[in-house]
């Protein structure tokens, strides 16, 4: 019997020991960070950087450039180990916000324009002006306006990953011809006629996947809204200078989308598909067009069947009757940027900044451009013959395009959430455009208090 008791005691001690040890391990983990960052100077020391991002190796233009630059960086920095976590776009956005809320941001990460304010106000990110000013070559290599989404006053709070339009119309000219439309509609009324004709032929006029909630707002409303309201209205909203979401121009933009829904212009499962699934209908020639940003150019080039790819043309949302906006604008900009944790110090910070530099170098931008992407830096010596047909078509279109702000990049997360889920509500018919405008305005005013 004594033996049993002995075994029990030993077991109990082991359990307690294990618990204490695991607690101690937790503690050590948190204590590690400042310790590590206080050692510095010795560049050859081993550094580990955690890097959470949204570039899955899917062959898209941006991921090609990204992995190329990353491999280059690894070669020139053998002492730096990069612990990567690559997530899909929607998942990434959720994860990074959750990490930020818990105060556990990784060393290097990607942020959206709308995250800048909450992150910066909480001291989780710091301005990069010093680092940029130290290397003017780096600073001057960016295209004009690249930093716009990440500037607060003079402070630059992110290194843009790309500068691209978020609203392009990809359409199949064969299907358009079949429906008796020989060229892309020149104004909104013609566009609606085209939708009707396509519908009559049995096609889904516009395929859309709005499960992530951002697509309708980011790829359609941001540009369509500008056609109705003009850019001054948006600037006034952003800077809280008196414009309202209940202004008739903005409500008209919402009504225009509502009208499209009522005309059955979209697929009926619009709110349960995501933006990758939306293109499937287009590839299968069941749908005549879809709205998506510049990133889709390389995706369509890679994914679409040959005949669909050949028939694909690009356009932008046509002007609307009585609209105040210019006809050649497209919502766009940098949108997302690389940033480093404000807590980094010493050699770890140096290594992280060098990583940011690598991610806006030629090794990053050139392969991206050649695959049809939109680097944020000026690339001079690239191989034009490598551009895909669609990318060339875009280059043609881009000559006349001017960028206007994307709503979800520049407005606060609260307003955007109300707008995005409200748009879903409007699409399924539980909210009228007027009510939606009121709801957005309510949230906007509550935050402004």
């Amino acid at each position, binding site marked *: 019997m004594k033996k049993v008791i002995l075994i029990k005691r030993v077991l109990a001690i082991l359990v307690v020991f294990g618990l204490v040890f695991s607690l101690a391990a937790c503690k050590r983990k948190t204590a590690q960070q400042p310790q590590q960052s206080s050692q510095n100077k010795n560049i050859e020391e081993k550094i580990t950087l955690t890097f959470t991002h949204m570039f899955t190796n899917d062959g898209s233009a941006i991921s090609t450039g990204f992995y190329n630059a990353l491999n280059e960086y690894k070669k020139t920095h053998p002492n730096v180990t990069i612990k990567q976590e690559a997530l899909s776009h929607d998942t990434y956005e959720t994860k990074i916000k959750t990490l930020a809320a818990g105060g556990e941001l990784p060393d290097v990460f990607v942020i959206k324009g709308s995250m800048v304010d909450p992150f910066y106000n909480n001291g989780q990110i710091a301005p990069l002006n010093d680092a940029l000013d130290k290397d003017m070559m780096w600073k001057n290599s960016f295209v004009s306006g690249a930093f716009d989404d990440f500037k607060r006053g003079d402070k630059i709070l992110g290194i843009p990953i790309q500068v691209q339009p978020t609203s392009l119309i990809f359409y199949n000219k064969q299907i358009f011809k079949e429906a008796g439309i020989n060229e892309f509609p020149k104004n909104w009324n013609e566009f609606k006629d085209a939708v009707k004709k396509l519908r009559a032929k049995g096609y889904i006029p516009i395929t859309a996947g709005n499960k992530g909630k951002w697509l309708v707002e980011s790829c359609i409303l941001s540009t369509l809204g500008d056609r109705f309201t003009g850019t001054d209205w948006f600037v006034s909203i952003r800077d809280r200078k008196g414009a309202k979401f209940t202004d008739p121009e903005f409500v008209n933009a919402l009504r225009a989308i509502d009208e499209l829904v009522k005309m059955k212009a979209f697929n009926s499962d619009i709110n349960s598909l995501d933006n990758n699934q939306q293109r499937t209908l287009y590839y299968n020639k069941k749908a005549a067009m879809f709205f998506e940003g510049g990133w889709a150019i390389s995706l369509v080039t890679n994914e679409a069947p040959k005949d669909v790819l050949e028939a694909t043309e690009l356009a932008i949302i046509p002007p609307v009757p009585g609209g105040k906006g210019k006809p050649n604008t497209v919502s766009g900009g940098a949108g997302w940027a690389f940033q480093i944790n404000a807590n980094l110090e010493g050699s770890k910070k140096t290594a992280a900044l060098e990583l940011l530099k690598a991610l806006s170098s030629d090794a990053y931008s050139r392969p991206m451009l050649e695959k049809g992407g939109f680097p944020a830096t000026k690339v001079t010596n690239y191989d034009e013959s490598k551009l895909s047909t669609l990318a060339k078509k875009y280059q043609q279109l881009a000559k006349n395009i001017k960028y206007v702000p994307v709503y979800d990049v520049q407005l606060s997360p609260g307003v955007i959430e109300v707008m995005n889920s409200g748009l879903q509500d409007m*699409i399924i018919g539980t909210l009228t455009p007027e009510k939606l405008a009121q709801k957005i305005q309510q949230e906007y005013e509550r935050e402004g208090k």
Partner: protein
Amino acid sequence: MERQLFKPRSRVFIAYLSLPVLWYLFVVVVPLVLAIRYSLYEWSGGPKMRFVGLSNYVQLIHDYDFWFSFKNNLIITLLCIIGQIGIAFILAAMMTTRVLKFKEFHRTVIFLPVVLSPVVIGFIWMLMYNQQIGILNWILRAIGLGSLVRPWLDDPKLVIYSVSVPLIWQYIGFYLVILMASLQSIPKEIFEAAEIDGADGFKRTIYVILPLLSDTLKVSIMLCIAGNMKVFDHIYVMTGGGPGKSSMVMAQYAYNNSFIMFKLGYGATISVGILVLSLAIILLSRKLMGGSEK
């Protein structure tokens, strides 16, 4: 010697107990107190916090979307009580008959979904509901009910029922196990006597099994309410509360406020709201069912 083995001294007793109690305090009570504290602040997750007193609660009481999601919680709870416990009860009753063969096999198969991750279940059912490739619509087309084909997770009137089905399906096995355990504690003689008296099938279920299981059923209903007031993962995966707000539940609403809109203070307020409402409903249901103090 023997006695010492089974009756440890109180010092040892406390030593053994203290760890789980501490653990419980750490993972349940402390977060609860913290949530109540956060609910009094306007807070976006970082070091900056602004004390706003009870104004978050005032906002919560006037928050239409919160009460709408509470209504959805109630619908789901009701469906789950009927679906999970009802089906589990019927299955348990069938398990006592001699007609049913391979009882072990059935029990295992029915219990299997309980151990799966809700996220996996959500993804599987999302695929099943898919309009183009989903098996549900495929079956409907195959048996000539093509007119019923629809995007099951897109229709605002249907979506709350669509998301309830996987929930019900997953936890039938859980209640089946509880009910079976309680059924097995009923002496065999009672069933034999019932059989001799001519009570079989339906009659036996209503007059013999139901009264004998009533206490277990009450507990199950309570568990079901508590579980469904905090339902989150299935809905998060399948619809994220959408389309719009049509399948929004309270936990999802708290999540959206905290992590999408960066209002962690208000998110904490909603969590406290969930706690209060759940407690209220459980107490109410105990009153309605005659309480368990007899």
